[in-house]
């Protein structure tokens, strides 16, 4: 009998190796992967999210839990789907810091938190061109493109990427922006779909955008 409460606790404590083992044991015991995902991992992560929101735990604990979630997901993923971003994943997010900008601390934090919440994150690193974003979005069938910039001089490149995405016929992919000089107003001005002020609200934004509209691949031919 698999004790999902114990799995939740391991996830909460960020014990990634133990959680990975228990995930494997659950599967070996014949539990369906979707059940293990829902009750063993996602239920635990929900507690993490709530506790973070209410200042009971802080960023390091959330990231440790996210790492544990990722370890559990790595076991489940092959059984849930043949491709990343399918069943079991909350969706694929391609993200990167825009061209000319080498700052990646905030973007990395968003990536870690998103992975911890079940998203599959394709991180393109820093100094990312529109062509690189588009190529990755296509290759991974991403539902969200995330762009980050720290400088007022580099954030203007976000508009270039938004326009390039449109020109490439990828309007159905939601575009999210963030970074110190970026604001909700700026996001609207450049035609992005969303802006988040911090990593935790970025993950909430991703969830909301995914819930709003299915990806083109699932909705039908693009």
């Amino acid at each position, binding site marked *: 009998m698999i004790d999902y409460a114990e799995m939740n606790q391991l996830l909460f404590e*960020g014990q990634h190796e133990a959680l990975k083992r228990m995930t494997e044991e659950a599967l070996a015991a014949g539990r369906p992967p979707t059940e293990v995902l829902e009750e063993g991992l996602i239920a635990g992560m929900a507690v993490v999210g709530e506790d973070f929101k209410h200042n009971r735990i*802080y*960023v*390091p604990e959330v*990231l*440790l839990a996210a*790492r544990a979630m990722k370890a559990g997901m790595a076991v489940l993923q092959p059984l849930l789907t043949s491709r990343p971003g399918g069943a079991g994943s909350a969706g694929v997010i391609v993200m990167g810091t825009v061209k000319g900008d080498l700052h*990646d*601390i905030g973007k*990395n*934090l968003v990536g870690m938190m998103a992975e911890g919440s079940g998203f599959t994150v394709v991180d393109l690193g820093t100094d990312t061109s529109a062509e690189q974003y588009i190529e990755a979005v296509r290759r991974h069938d991403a539902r969200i493109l995330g762009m980050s910039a720290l400088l007022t001089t580099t954030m203007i490149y976000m508009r270039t990427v938004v326009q390039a995405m449109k020109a490439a016929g990828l309007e159905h992919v939601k575009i999210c922006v963030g970074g110190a000089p970026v*604001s*909700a107003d700026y996001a609207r001005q450049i035609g992005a779909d969303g*802006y988040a*002020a*911090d990593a935790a*609200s970025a993950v909430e934004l991703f969830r909301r955008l995914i819930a709003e509209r299915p990806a083109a691949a699932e909705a039908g031919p693009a």
Partner: protein
Amino acid sequence: MRPSMRVLHPSLRDRVIDESMDVLARLGVQVEDPGARQRLEAIGLRADPTTHRIQIPRTLVEQALVTAPSSVTLHDREGRPAAVVGGDEVHFVPASSALRVLDRHTQQVRDPNSADFVEYVKLGHGLPNLSYLSTAFIPKDVPQDIADAWRLYLVAAHSTRPIVSGAFTAWGVPRMGQIMAMFRSGRDDLAARPMALFTVCPNTPLRWGEDPIANLMDCAEWGIPVEIVPVLLLGMISPATTVGALVLHTAEVLSGLTIAQLVRPGTPIVFGGAPASFHMQLMSNPMTAVEALQLYCAYAEVAKHLGLPSQAYMALSDSKFNDPQAGMETGVGAFLAALAGINSVSGPGMLDYVNCFSLEKLVFDDEVVAHARRFIRPVEVREDLPAGPLLEELIRDKHLLMSDHTLAHWPEELYLPGPMVDRTNWDQWEGQGSRTWRDRALDQIDEILGRYEEAPLPDALHAEIRGLISRTGLEPGAALPMLGGVR
């Protein structure tokens, strides 16, 4: 090593002390009240019959410095040790004694009443960074002759914390002593486990008026610890310059200390002060003037060198409202006091030249205190030397957010301020309702008052204290206010 600051060269400090003893021996202090002179004569201090000045020989001062304790432990209402005033300890306590309050609902300045005072006590009791409470302002709904005892009673009735207080009349201390002794097995127990520190202010320059000298000697007789608080006005009733003022300030404190030790050797004396500048245009007396701040830090050095606990009126503001000036004056004062290692800092909550008390400010200042105290925490090696392995980990992982080192140390290293300091970015702030500091302060006040739990006193004790206060100061037929929690 605890972060600290110095403003005096040791040789200058020593010269100031030497000079102040010389001043006491040559000029002495003036005591106008004949009754007080009689009491002083009984302990060997004879006044000149014409000038009424008492010269205090250096040997007496030096002997007094030997018997005066280097620290005093304040005990709570229940008799438990609560705060050591001395050594490297830095405590913050609400300032006292304002005549008015800034009404938090109307933002009008008005006279306070006993209900305001009880609310203050309950709030102060719930603030985590204040070490003890003061009798912060003066309720106007009781006769002023009993207001000192009444305030003391209201604090003790609604909080277990030690108290900084003082008497308003020449005969006020024994009555307050009797009240405090009711919380102990008697006078000796009260002297052994004091629950209050009493403020006594000499009359600058080098005079002791009827009230302060009586209060000082009564406190010594009762074994009540005293903070001697000269109120110099730089350029007016004190030399305008720091060194001259420091000599005067030190002489005044040492005169009181010597008298107290003659009355009762071992009486705890705190080297205090509330010096202010004299504004040469407006004639106002800012305690937060930059030169006054320098004097505070300077006399703290003298106190430390003499092995005495120290006190100062810092971490307060002379501004009328909780505006940027108030923030600057309070913050600067708190940090300087902490760096100077002043043991008991009277300031939080106070505005307008110690005339006006504000609950919003008290809540805000509690956070200022937390910052100042965090700043003077010793800088120590915390598994970060040699730093190589940690930096290798940083380069490898690109961050240390999940590092064992961070997990072990961030909670004690990275201070997370409470709601009074806004650390949100603009969007988070808007998302949380665009709340101003005052909105958050009012929330904090409501929240703390909402979770306040009374530690009730026995009914018989209430009756005994109220009876004593009524008998000694109420007109026949008059009654003391009845307040929540007081039966």
